[in-house]
């Protein structure tokens, strides 16, 4: 799979190229953007799911999402193994 490596190298350089300046910008942007963590509703009029976060219920959502994702990924891994076994069998 030479193509995959090629694609990955391309993507990694692209991701690194864009994420790099982003880190550098953080300090300058921190002063200009609205503070997210501030609990006072007066500082931000735009409604977000702050209450859900304060209750800790967001972690339930994250747990469910991670479980679903892991389930799908484990399925993919087992499929990968099955195909690998077939390939080995056919080669013999």
């Amino acid at each position, binding site marked *: *799979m030479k*193509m*995959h490596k090629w*694609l*990955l190298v391309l*993507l*990694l350089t692209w*991701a690194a190229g*864009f*994420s790099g300046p*982003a*880190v550098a*910008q*953080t300090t300058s*942007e921190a002063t200009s*953007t*609205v503070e*997210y*963590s501030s609990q006072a509703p007066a500082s*931000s009029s*735009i*409604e*977000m*799911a702050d209450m859900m976060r304060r209750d800790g219920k*967001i972690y339930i*959502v*994250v747990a469910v*999402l*991670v479980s679903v*994702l*892991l389930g799908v*990924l484990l399925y*993919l*891994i087992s*499929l*990968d193994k099955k*195909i690998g076994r*077939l*390939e080995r069998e*056919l080669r013999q």
Partner: protein
Amino acid sequence: MKLTWWKWLTIALLLYTVVGGMLTEVPRLAILNETIRNLYFHVPMWFGMILILLVSVIYSIKYLRNPLSRHDIIAHEAAKVGILFGVLGIITGMEWARFTWGEFWSNDPKQNGSAIGLLIYFAYLILRGSFQDHQQRARISAVYNIFAFAALIPLLFILPRLTDSLHPGNGGNPGFNAYDLDSRLRAVFYPAVLGWTLLGVWMVHLRTRLEVLKQRFYENA
């Protein structure tokens, strides 16, 4: 578990996307509110689709230069996974649009363009199915694939910019701005794009191996 390193990277990036996508700080934007987090799931579908379809078209060109059935198989499987990502992109986009733009389908130029682009790719699959001869199928669909990809680029990236669009970065605006300018979004968005794309590559990898096995099985039988 023995897995190639990039498969571990896929798993790590996707886990980071889900956890980071829900828990990290995002800018407070009117109308969008918390739905800005869809940026980590809806947009990577399109990035993934374009990159996987790019793999498909590269293998189509490779097939035309050197007609190995392996090249044809990769082009076909990559096109199928690319279409899957595109369909997921349309569905997630419609869901997001319903609650931010008011309607599932508001005839936004980018929505229309992506719908036309997907139809062109559906035709690729139908075209493939209409040949009896393997070599004829591989050759003609490889040529069609090149045209399909060439049509997709203006439909998604050029035409929507020429008119007003609800999508950010369109309607006269340069590329990424409003949302992507924020470094907090970027920190999850780029890993998310990489993770979802690698997941697609993984799927192409599996389906290709399965198809190669199938061919070899029929040859031996």
